[in-house]
């Protein structure tokens, strides 16, 4: 079953060539075998269980990021503070997949509480890139991206607050899709920054991304921010033509890709653009306010730290999770949190609290929200003219786990090339990353972001780009 797509597995199962239980067993064997090197899983399910369904996903194994609540199954958020937490309720995503007959085979490692982009900070140890074990997978949906890249499962669920599905997709050579904010219910997904949090899917091709999204999207009365349901399925409407589609890319971002690996990324990107134009697609270069592009990262950081501080204030050890020692409730709370969170997390919380303080809120939090609005307003104007924004998904291949030199996170190249994916979270836009080539033996990718609620168009264009670049993998 390794490397088979959902539809391929579907026909094998339907034709009786393999049972879904055999697929499941093979999947967990692969997962167990890879734990020593890749370490993608917090939990590997040992018992096959499946509900009756005639969905395309019936009998298909999948992996779920370990920040989705699963009743009766350990859900840790890859944090010590939840290392023994067994939920009593199901996330909507898990419930829908269960009802569709999809078979959960494992819960995947993330950066602790989804805060991070390396895959190195989960409480069960670092996740290594299956394509090169000396490299990172990216994060925070590290294990989910790795599981799909290894061929352990045809699809995995992730969450995306800044780029947490789409960046690891790029580093692992898989497809990562985050639909419009509200398309998929967040009920039961551990919150990081609620206004930026999205559910996303990782697959090996665009069709599979559409199939999975079809199953998990929809209005959910438990999540007030979910959108009214559409009457059609994405997977049944993917065929379209690139002829006349209008895309744009941002000059300032490509200009920052002038040196080394980034230059190769840019060259691959222009090559992709060239091929799309040959198919009749219109691709234009536009100029975007550089001062706004430069503050994407700080804006993201401010909003996400502030929201995450509050969102994680329930982790006190009183009701669930390991409880720290102490003679008073206050002591218990302080000890639980001091022992439960890694240093990086505490740092974010302290920064988040600082940002929300009365005297800083206007200058930091509210200004960050204003910048977010300015960027979204500019983007919305562009989406009136164009079908989508296309850009390199990252500035290079997956970095080494132990880099020889520290990257300058605020340097020009890093700042623009590595952080623009957060635009998709600022505006709640549908956004998809898909492989576009290799540097050496490591994959690189392009990203396509479309206007709010235009998920179908986003998937249609991505489907054509995938075909143009050499068909389904």
């Amino acid at each position, binding site marked *: 079953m390794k490397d088979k797509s959902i539809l391929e597995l579907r026909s094998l199962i339907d034709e009786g060539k393999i049972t879904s239980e055999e697929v499941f067993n093979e999947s967990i064997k692969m997962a167990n075998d890879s734990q020593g090197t890749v370490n993608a899983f917090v939990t590997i399910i040992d018992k096959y269980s499946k509900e009756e369904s005639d969905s395309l996903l019936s009998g298909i194994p999948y992996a779920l990021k370990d920040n989705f609540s699963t009743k009766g199954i350990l859900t840790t*958020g890859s944090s010590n503070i939840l290392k023994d937490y067994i939920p009593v309720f199901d996330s909507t995503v898990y419930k829908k997949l269960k009802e569709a007959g999809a078979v959960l085979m494992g819960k995947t490692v993330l950066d602790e509480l989804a805060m991070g982009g390396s895959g190195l900070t989960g409480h069960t140890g670092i996740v290594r890139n299956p394509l090169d074990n000396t490299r990172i997978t990216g994060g925070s949906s590290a294990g989910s991206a790795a599981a799909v890249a290894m061929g352990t499962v045809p699809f995995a669920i992730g969450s995306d607050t800044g780029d947490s599905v789409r960046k690891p997709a790029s580093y692992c050579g898989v497809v990562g899709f985050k639909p419009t904010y509200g398309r998929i219910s967040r009920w039961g997904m551990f*919150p990081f920054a609620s206004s930026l949090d999205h559910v996303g899917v990782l697959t090996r091709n665009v069709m599979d991304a559409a199939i999975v999204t079809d199953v998990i999207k929809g209005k959910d009365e438990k999540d*007030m921010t979910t959108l009214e349901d559409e009457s059609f399925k994405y997977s049944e409407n993917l065929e379209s033509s690139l002829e006349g589609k209008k895309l744009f890319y941002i000059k300032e971002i490509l200009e920052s890709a002038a040196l080394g690996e980034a230059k190769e990324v840019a060259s691959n990107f222009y090559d992709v653009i060239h091929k799309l134009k040959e198919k009749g697609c219109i691709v234009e270069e536009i100029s975007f306010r550089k001062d706004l592009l430069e503050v994407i990262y700080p804006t993201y950081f401010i909003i996400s730290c*502030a929201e995450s501080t*509050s969102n994680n204030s*329930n982790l006190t050890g009183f009701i*669930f999770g390991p409880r720290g020692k102490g003679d008073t*409730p206050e002591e218990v709370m302080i000890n639980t949190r001091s022992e439960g969170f890694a240093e990086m997390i505490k740092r974010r919380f302290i920064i988040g609290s600082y940002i929300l303080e009365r005297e800083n809120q206007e200058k930091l*939090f509210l200004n960050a929200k204003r910048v977010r609005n300015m960027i979204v307003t500019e983007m919305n104007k562009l989406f009136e003219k164009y079908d989508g924004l296309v850009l390199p998904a990252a500035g290079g291949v997956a970095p080494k786990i132990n880099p020889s030199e520290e990257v300058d996170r605020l340097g020009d190249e890093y700042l623009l090339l590595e952080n623009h994916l957060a635009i998709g979270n600022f505006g709640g836009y549908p956004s998809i990353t898909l492989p576009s080539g290799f540097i050496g033996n490591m994959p690189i990718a392009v990203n396509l972001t479309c206007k709010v609620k235009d998920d179908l168009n986003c998937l249609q264009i991505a489907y054509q780009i995938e075909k143009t670049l050499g068909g389904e993998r």
Partner: protein
Amino acid sequence: MYKAVIGLEVHTELNTKSKMFSGSKNEYTKEANANISEIDLALPGILPLPNIEGVRKALKLAMCLNCETPDEVMFDRKNYYYADLPKGYQLTQMTRPFGKNGYLDIDVNGKSKRVRIHQLHLEEDSASMTHESTYSLLDYNRAGVPLIEIVTEPDMNTIDEVVEYLENLRSIIKYAGISEASSEKGQLRVDVNISMMKEEDTTLGTRAEIKNINSFNTVKEVIAYEMKRQEELLSSGGKVVQETRRWADDEKKTVSMREKVDAIDYRYYVEPNIPVVKLNSEFKEEIRKSIPVLPMERMKKYVSLGVSEKDAKSIVREKSISDYFDEVLLYNIDARDASNWLTTRLMGYMNQNNLTIDEVYLRPDMLASLVSLVNTGKISSQQAKDVFVFSLEEEKTPLEIVKEKGMEQISDEETIREMVREVISSNPNQYEAYKSGKTALLGFFVGQTLKVSEGKANPAVVNKLVQEELNK
């Protein structure tokens, strides 16, 4: 000479069926942690689901208190860590409270007074906590119950004003049907903000806040104590510290909890999981229409109909009693007489037997008929008292009682004259005495006639005819 400046914060729990942000039942139960769900416990991944009934009820009270209401629903997070707060933040309203700049007119010893409402907002209650010697217990039944906070401006100066404000507020809350508003069950909790200033001062003094007072009686005690404490402090050259205090009931005094009330930074920000919902004018109008005539207005009406202010006040305290009275008045009877019957007889009976007005047998039409039986001379007021008791005891209408017991008053002159003559002829000695100047014996003949009639004869008619016959 110092005067007190007092502002109040009143919390009242709403009587919605479910909690404010979850589907758990909102009802009092002795069993701990019976009404809880993953939302109330703030398990990872939960999202708030606002209760529209809670929104309606909060807006209704805001309207009753003449507040400006917002055009959209918005909630904010109030961030702080405390063991009784499951999420580590409380959902409340900071940016767009449901009520602003309202007022409540009260009547204090015959004088009208306006207490301005600074703000009214909707929030969720916390869990209840019991501290034992070596451990604490948490009960999450209360966690997430809708709670309204009504904050006044510092407009009150006396205990009477405070009590009158609280009584009025409580009746309005009950009239609006949004809460049982029973302070015994902790459904009304009061925080008192109090400072003292000299008459000639232009700025307010430093205030103390006394939190979480459960009964109106304690509110009185707290204010009396604080007025004395602060005045003594100030007049001996001391200073009042800005602080939060609590009432120690066993010692009958307030004690300091913590200083600098404003120092806590709750890092408020708008709840991102609840999209801004517009409140259109139709929705608001529908709520406005559901507001009944409020106590103050009813009281004015009763007084204008001749009811005493004291009676009017006690009738409007409870909406059910006022509704009853309104129904009695529909029968076009004397309002003052009806109010006398209601406040002395009927309410006395209710108190004695621990009944509500809806539980007593005597319905408004029956009370009305009792009043009119007296006023039209069909029965005497003495008979009426018996009819009242029989009616309640035997569960029969006053008319039935009068008929059954033959209690109808005799006013027919011919019949009564017959009786008078009989009495005179059977008491010749008294008659002679009267005739020779002992006119005080008039009463004797009246009494004897009434006795002969078994109390049914109309006393006025008897009186008149006795005189006529004696003076023939």
